[in-house]
């Protein structure tokens, strides 16, 4: 889209203000700047406007203006995404859902809640907590990220291992379609008739429309919870322990791994009780009925000991348990103590390949002269290598991008995937051919077109931008578009 002229821009601004009210439109350059990236600062782009609707009707009217103008638009929640998913594309409209953040209805008998998309994930659990309920999907960013962002990225979290990802907890959605129509996908019952369109929408990364109401399941808090911290002197032992636990037929609620560099950052941040000299620690949680929980716990302790754990202990009380989780969930942010920036990767691998892949990750990053911290959902084989770098040092970003691509390639090679939960967004769109064939991508493109025929709804995301996107299966390294544009170099 051509750049807006000043006249056109102020006319449009007035029109947008007529929809959402005077305080609901941003267009000053300094204000737009703040919206130039999400949790991944490697990518940035400026919008023409950021708008703040307060109802589905507002969203629909905004979308219709954008379509009329041929102006791209994108939904934004809290902007904690880690793949550039909510970035605008060459100007256009960012539709912030942060002023639609109410819990509209809670039905405890049927264990569901109807919420607006801008509601912070954790605030839903707070709202239903006094009645003994909670919302199960718990991304580590849950204190800030929104339910709308969660459904778009089909977000997971530590407890995904037992409880599934966001899609397993969404019953229905009210959606403003990319043409401005307001429709319901799914509803309030588990078994809606017809196609599972709510299921299709979840994980569509904001490219199928904008959710304006979401019906989610809420769960009763488990009767009992036990959290175990296992400490290892070698990262291989920790990997082996993960497999040993699962091999015993146990289904923990969560199995998280955290390595030494990350432990040290987290301890600096909040002093959570992880031993600083450990090579790795596992945070393992079991929950459910009180009866039998001790027995499960013992078997986990045993599996860890057999794998060589130097120390295994259960959190003594709720306060200690909360503190251990606080450490785990703050890990990404805590990297700020050891590095001015980081880029988190989000690969998935078969659990059995953990030792091999972690070893390769360390080699790849070291070869680029960089450091890496690992903190991840080990039980799911969902890796998060965090490559630390300094954006002020010339050439470092390029090396990060290069290392990232190689890591993604390894994940694909061992039969895994290039995203567990953070979405493809902008960052990984060019890695899609690592795992999808041309036919796969063409099929997905047809689905997208059915929802989003003009392509104006969150363009430039998910699908590779290169013509060579037809390459099948794991492929050799291809230069990242950033490198092609000469913005970065591979050494």
């Amino acid at each position, binding site marked *: 889209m051509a750049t807006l002229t000043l006249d056109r821009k102020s006319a449009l601004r007035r029109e947008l203000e007529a929809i959402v009210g005077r305080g609901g439109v941003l267009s000053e350059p300094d204000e737009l700047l*703040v919206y130039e990236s999400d949790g991944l600062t490697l990518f940035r782009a400026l919008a023409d406007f950021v708008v703040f609707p307060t109802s589905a009707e507002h969203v629909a009217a905004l979308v219709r203006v954008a379509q009329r103008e041929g102006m791209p638009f994108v939904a934004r929640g809290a*902007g904690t995404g880690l793949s550039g998913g909510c970035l605008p*594309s060459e100007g256009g409209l960012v539709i912030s859902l942060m002023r639609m953040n109410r819990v509209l209805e809670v039905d405890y008998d049927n264990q569901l809640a109807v919420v607006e998309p801008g509601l912070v994930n954790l605030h839903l659990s707070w709202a239903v907590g006094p009645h003994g309920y909670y919302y199960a999907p718990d991304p580590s*960013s849950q204190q800030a990220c929104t339910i709308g962002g969660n459904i778009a990225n089909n977000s997971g979290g530590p407890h995904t291992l037992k409880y599934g990802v966001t899609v397993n907890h969404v019953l229905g959605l009210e959606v403003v379609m990319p043409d401005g129509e307001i429709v319901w996908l799914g509803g309030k019952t588990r078994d809606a008739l017809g196609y599972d369109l709510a299921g299709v929408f979840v994980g569509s990364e904001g490219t199928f429309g904008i959710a304006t109401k979401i019906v989610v399941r809420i769960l009763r808090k488990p009767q009992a919870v036990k959290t175990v911290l296992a400490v290892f002197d070698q990262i291989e032992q920790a990997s082996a322990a993960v497999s040993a636990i699962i091999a015993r037929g146990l289904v923990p609620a969560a199995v998280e791994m955290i390595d030494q560099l990350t432990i040290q950052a987290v301890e600096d941040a909040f002093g959570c009780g992880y031993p600083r000299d450990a090579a790795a620690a596992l945070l393992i949680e079991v929950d459910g009925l009180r009866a039998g929980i001790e027995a499960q716990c013992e078997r986990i302790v045993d599996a860890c000991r057999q794998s060589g754990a130097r120390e295994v202990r259960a959190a003594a009380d709720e306060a200690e348990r909360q503190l251990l989780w606080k450490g785990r969930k703050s890990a990404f942010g805590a990297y*700020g103590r050891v590095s*001015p920036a980081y880029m988190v990767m989000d690969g998935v691998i078969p659990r059995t390949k953990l030792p091999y892949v972690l070893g390769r990750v360390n080699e790849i990053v070291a070869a680029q002269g960089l450091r890496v911290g690992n903190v991840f959902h080990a039980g799911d084989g969902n890796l998060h290598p965090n490559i630390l770098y300094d*954006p*002020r040092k010339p050439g470092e*970003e390029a090396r990060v991008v290069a290392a990232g691509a190689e890591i993604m390639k390894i994940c694909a090679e061992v039969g895994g995937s290039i995203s567990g939960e953070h979405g493809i967004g902008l960052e990984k769109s060019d890695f899609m051919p690592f795992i999808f064939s041309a036919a796969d991508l063409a099929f997905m493109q047809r689905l997208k077109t059915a929802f989003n025929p003009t392509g104006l709804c969150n363009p430039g995301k998910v699908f590779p931008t290169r013509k060579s996107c037809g390459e099948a299966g794991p492929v050799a390294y291809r230069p990242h578009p950033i490198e092609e544009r000469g*913005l970065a170099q591979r050494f």
Partner: protein
Amino acid sequence: MTHATSDTPASTSPLALHGLSVEGVNQCVHCGLCLAYCPTFSELGTEMDSPRGRIFLIKSLAEGRIGLSDPTVEHLSLCLDCRACETVCPAGVPYGRLIEAAKAEIERQRPGGAARRAFRWLNFGMLLGSPRVLRAAAAGLHFYQASGLQRLVRRSGLTRLLPGTLPAWEALLPPLPADRAPLAPLTPAVGARRARVAMLTGCVQSVVFGAHNRATARVLARNGCDVLAPPQGCCGALNAHGGDHARAVEMAKRTIETFEAAGAETVVVNTSGCGAHMKAYGALLASEPGWAERAARFARTVQDISEFLAQAPLRGPLAPVPMTVTYHDPCHVVHGQKIRRQPRELLAQIPALRVVDLPESDWCCGSAGIYNLTQPEMADRLLRRKVRNVESTKAEAVVTANPGCILQIQAGLRAAGRDVPVLHLVEILDKAYTSAGGSTVPSDASPRIDGGGKVAARAR
């Protein structure tokens, strides 16, 4: 268009605003975990009014990517400086220092018109700068209130003619007590001596809330402290928060000299902003030749009253105070000094006192130094939120630990038609001590908390 950030200036020279380092911006990794804990973001939903957004604005300013445009000034000025973001920040961004530097830069570039400059000079230079001027002003104000002139002026609508934020100042004026005498230079310990402490008696605090100071001294004495109250000036916190950096530095030096000369082991503070600010003297004077280490050493001797008292069990006897209260955490106690446990532990030691949890107890009430005067609209939104939360507890009184919060929350409750007093922690402790009798400290007054939970005038 979308691009990677490789084209950012590769400069590695330290980032600064108004000569103050803002290198701390580089600790922010943009994770956003602070967002939902920021009162202004939670009210507005706009990221320029969130910590992550403001840090980004400050960084862009320091890098020269943007200038001080009207919107930028507006968003930075809307920051409460409550530092709730620091409590949740895993990266340890020193947010308070960043926003102070930004505010100093705003003052430098935008000193405002003659009226505003004169007003700031009057406040920061004259009133806060000299205890004598402050006392004289207080005497004048007391006359204004006691003589009935205030009622007359308010009824006549004359306040509307006052320039700038003066009408708001006028409306917020607490009734000034007739007795504004400074604290005795020494309040001796009762029983076995445990420590020798000095008290910050505060500038505004000493004239408006002298009763808090006296209560603090009595409670300290009861707990075995010789309490010194050397003649002193203002610690400079309001100046620093208001962007008046140069005077803040001078005031810090004078304060350090005063307390060093007094020769106490600990400096006890009963106002949150002052305590947090004095603990940061090390950073404030880091680049002042000859002062850096001295300031850091001094800062380590500063303690909030609750922090100090909670180091040991309270000495008895404490009389029962049979009422239900709730505790509001002042920002610069809970976020600025990370003191959360101690006031609650102290309250728990008062017999028969029931303490109920206040939802969002650590959310700013909107007082925030002079914020309620400079940003009345946002202050009011936050105050109403605070009042709703207090109402939900059904408490008979609110306990907190800072005069600004007391004035603000009390005004909010009164406006909502609630007859719920707001007390300083030391007042309720003092009440438990004085009701218990025993070996009394020479005392002038103590708050009377009658049956309805009301605090009566502090009579002699």
